[in-house]
């Protein structure tokens, strides 16, 4: 031990707490050599290439002004995308991309930080590392530095890409900072969550819930106030991202909000690290029952036990989101009439029906698309159980493979119905109460449930990957993300129909407000069943592990 001690250059206690940070950072970058470049390049290029898309779509100043005016005038559209601060080409890019990019940068950052902190502790790998010459603060520092590098690369890519395509440099940098700044703040929040929870899954879920709350606050605030000046908007980091006002009147001081809040969250995470033991959290483990309840008897009971908390969280989140969006639905009728651009966009997004219905249909569509994240996660629990060696002893019991899989799949498929049903009910009731007409509640939950076949198609795709390509299950997330991106940014970019048709959501009628035919539902359900059957057939034949 003395030999090691003398090998360390004399330093303060603080610097010794950081010992090994460089090595851990290199390890993190090595492990993420695919993930970080994929995120940064994918997101950076989408944002940077947005200039030419808008240029092609709205090539005259008059067209842009009309779009900007109509978008800002309508409360419900502001809830989705925020207000337009400038009708320049750059202004439209910022309007369309600030929120989208910020959300994705936040997801990227939280994944990076949790992966290199709580996940390492949970799997026991950190113990081995920490037993070497690694300081107490080194793992967290390395994770945050990895996130910082990723976000910095994102800022540079976006700023340089947009500036090169002819947009003003100041605005390009501001947009980059809005996205990267949100990313770093969520890196800090994820660092706190990683100290509070004991599992990586919970840390990601907690940070994801904060992101959802930030989205809802900004949406509600922007719906109420056309200048993004509502206190609700300012309470959300996503509101700061738009309030940087890239390509309009840039407010550089908002960057300080990101800096200060990131510093604060990072400091809090460090303070928490210093006060806890490795592998432990602040939520102490309570003793459990000495014997299993009657319900915990087979694969179904086990799957329900393992997944019920997640399902409860999603349902609660959907009820809250439905209540918020139902409450602002009335704002859709505040529409400045006769604006062709807006109506066109509305029609593409929400069908040809009355505008309120179109708004509700848009919200229902959002709920449907996001529900795929739940469903895919519930299916991929199967793979998680398998790789963690917990499936093996269960399958060594008198449990057929199909029955074991059916337990988790039942939760995934039925859970989708539960999540969408409750979300749609909350949306409908909240809307009915706000217009004082509970007779209009009914069609909304029905419309939400009409999203189920599309979600199940992606669920089936996850089963297919699990059964036939178990090592490539991460690709399922790319497909789910691609469908979300198509649904979110596709309509205002006038994507061709074949592109929208790639997503199962592109085939659904816009409900409520339009006539529904059985054909798309039948096709989607059939496709979903084929995926499911093929995936299960593959799973029966393959090796476990």
């Amino acid at each position, binding site marked *: 031990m003395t030999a090691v001690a003398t090998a360390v250059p004399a330093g303060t206690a603080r610097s010794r707490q950081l010992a090994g940070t460089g090595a851990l950072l290199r390890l993190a970058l090595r492990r993420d050599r695919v993930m970080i470049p994929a995120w940064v390049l994918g997101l950076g290029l989408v944002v940077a290439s947005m200039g030419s898309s808008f240029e092609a779509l709205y090539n005259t100043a008059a067209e842009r002004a009309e779009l900007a005016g109509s978008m800002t005038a309508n409360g419900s559209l502001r809830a989705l995308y925020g207000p337009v601060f400038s009708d320049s080409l750059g202004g439209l890019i910022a309007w369309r991309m600030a929120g989208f990019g910020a959300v994705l940068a936040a997801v990227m950052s939280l994944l990076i930080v949790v992966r290199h902190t709580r996940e390492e502790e949970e799997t026991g790998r950190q113990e081995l590392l920490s037993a070497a010459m690694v300081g107490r603060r080194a793992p967290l520092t390395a994770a945050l530095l990895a996130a910082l590098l990723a976000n910095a690369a994102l800022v540079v890519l976006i700023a340089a890409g947009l500036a090169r395509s002819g947009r003003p440099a100041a605005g390009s940098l501001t947009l980059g900072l809005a996205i990267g700044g949100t990313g770093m703040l969520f890196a800090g929040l994820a660092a706190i969550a990683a100290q509070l929870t004991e599992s990586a899954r919970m840390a990601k879920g907690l940070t994801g819930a904060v992101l959802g709350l930030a989205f809802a606050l900004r949406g509600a605030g922007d719906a109420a106030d056309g200048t993004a000046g509502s206190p609700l908007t300012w309470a959300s980091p996503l509101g700061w991202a738009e309030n940087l006002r890239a390509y309009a009147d840039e407010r550089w001081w908002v960057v300080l909000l990101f800096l200060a809040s990131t510093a604060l969250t990072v400091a809090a995470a460090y303070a928490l690290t210093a006060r806890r033991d490795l592998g432990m959290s602040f939520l102490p483990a309570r003793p*459990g029952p*000495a014997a*299993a309840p009657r319900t915990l008897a087979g694969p179904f009971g086990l799957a329900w036990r393992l997944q019920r908390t997640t399902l409860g969280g999603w349902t609660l989140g959907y009820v809250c989101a439905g209540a918020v969006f139902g409450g602002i639905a009335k704002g859709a009728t505040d529409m400045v009439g006769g604006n062709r651009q807006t109506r066109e966009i509305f029609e593409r997004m929400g069908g040809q029906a009355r505008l309120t219905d179109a708004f509700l249909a848009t919200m229902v569509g959002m709920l449907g698309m996001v529900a795929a994240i739940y469903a895919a996660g519930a299916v991929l629990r199967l793979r998680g159980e398998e790789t963690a060696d917990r499936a*093996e002893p269960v399958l060594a019991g*008198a449990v057929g493979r199909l029955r074991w899989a059916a337990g988790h799949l039942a939760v995934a498929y039925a859970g989708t119905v539960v999540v969408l049903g409750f979300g749609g009910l909350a949306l409908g009731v909240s809307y009915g109460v706000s217009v004082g007409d509970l007779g209009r509640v009914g069609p909304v939950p029905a419309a939400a449930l009409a999203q189920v076949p599309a979600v199940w198609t992606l669920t089936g795709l996850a089963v297919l990957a699990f059964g036939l390509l178990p090592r490539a299950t991460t690709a399922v997330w790319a497909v789910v993300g691609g469908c979300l991106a198509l649904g979110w940014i596709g309509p205002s970019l006038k994507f061709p129909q074949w592109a929208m048709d790639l997503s199962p959501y592109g085939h659904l009628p816009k409900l409520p407000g339009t006539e529904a035919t059985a054909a798309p539902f039948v096709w989607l359900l059939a496709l979903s069943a084929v995926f499911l059957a093929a995936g299960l057939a593959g799973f029966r034949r393959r*090796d476990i592990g």
Partner: protein
Amino acid sequence: MTKPIAPAPAIRVDGLHKSFGRTHALDGLDLTVESGEVHGFLGPNGAGKSTTIRVLLGLLRADRGTVRLLDRDPWHDAVAVHRRIAYVPGDVTLWRNLSGGEVIDLYGRLRGGLDARRRAELIERFELDPTKKGRTYSKGNRQKVALVAAFASDVDLLILDEPTSGLDPLMEEVFQNCVAEERDRGRTVLLSSHVLSEVEALCDRVSIIRKGRTVESGSLGELRHLTRTSIVAELAGPPNGLSALPGVHDLDVRGHRVRLQVDTDKLDAVLRALGTSGVRSLTSTPPTLEELFLRHYQDDVRGGADRDRTAVAR
């Protein structure tokens, strides 16, 4: 103690092959475990023990060869077979939010059922706290959870994959007692282990595998027979013709003093040859179990002759 009369062996594996990509994990492995015996399953790390066990459990599909477990095909009849077996993996992972007691009951219910009295007794003997959550158990305690579930289950065959690697010596003794009780009830045990004293104390027969093949199989006595005995002798006269005898190795003659090693099945001829010179003193050291195993664990032990004597004692 009455053993049920079972004509078919509990486990019978012939010429098992299994590849993962280009790696040949199992290369013609044979294994026979008779009903009612405790069978030691030995081999260096990476020899293919766990892969064999996963094939036996129907978790991996055999590329070639026949596998019979309780006279059934474990791949096609997995559920029916699993109702009668209990498995303890080498690396027990538990669900973080389920208590040990819940996991024991769950595993029991997933098999043929659980003997509640035996469960309580085993928890006592293994000094296990069943109310702790999965994430708070140490490695040894996680193994105890799986062991209690296995020993309390109503099954015919126990498959234990290095089950004691995390147990302290006291618990190791409890484990050995439990295995002995299982044998006395007529149950079959396949025990993969690196603890040689444990194997020596418990196993009726052992199979040693290396690089995916069975290199030795038989009772411990039979296996000892296949190895060399060291002999040091003080003779009355010069030794006669020892070097010409088959099975003699490392002969070292200094005057009337002889040191040699001899294949144990050739011992007779050597003793007779020594006797012709008149023996004043004789020390004979039988092979230790360690020597026996190390010989097979090491990579290149004096050519392939030893390896060809596969399954002599069948």
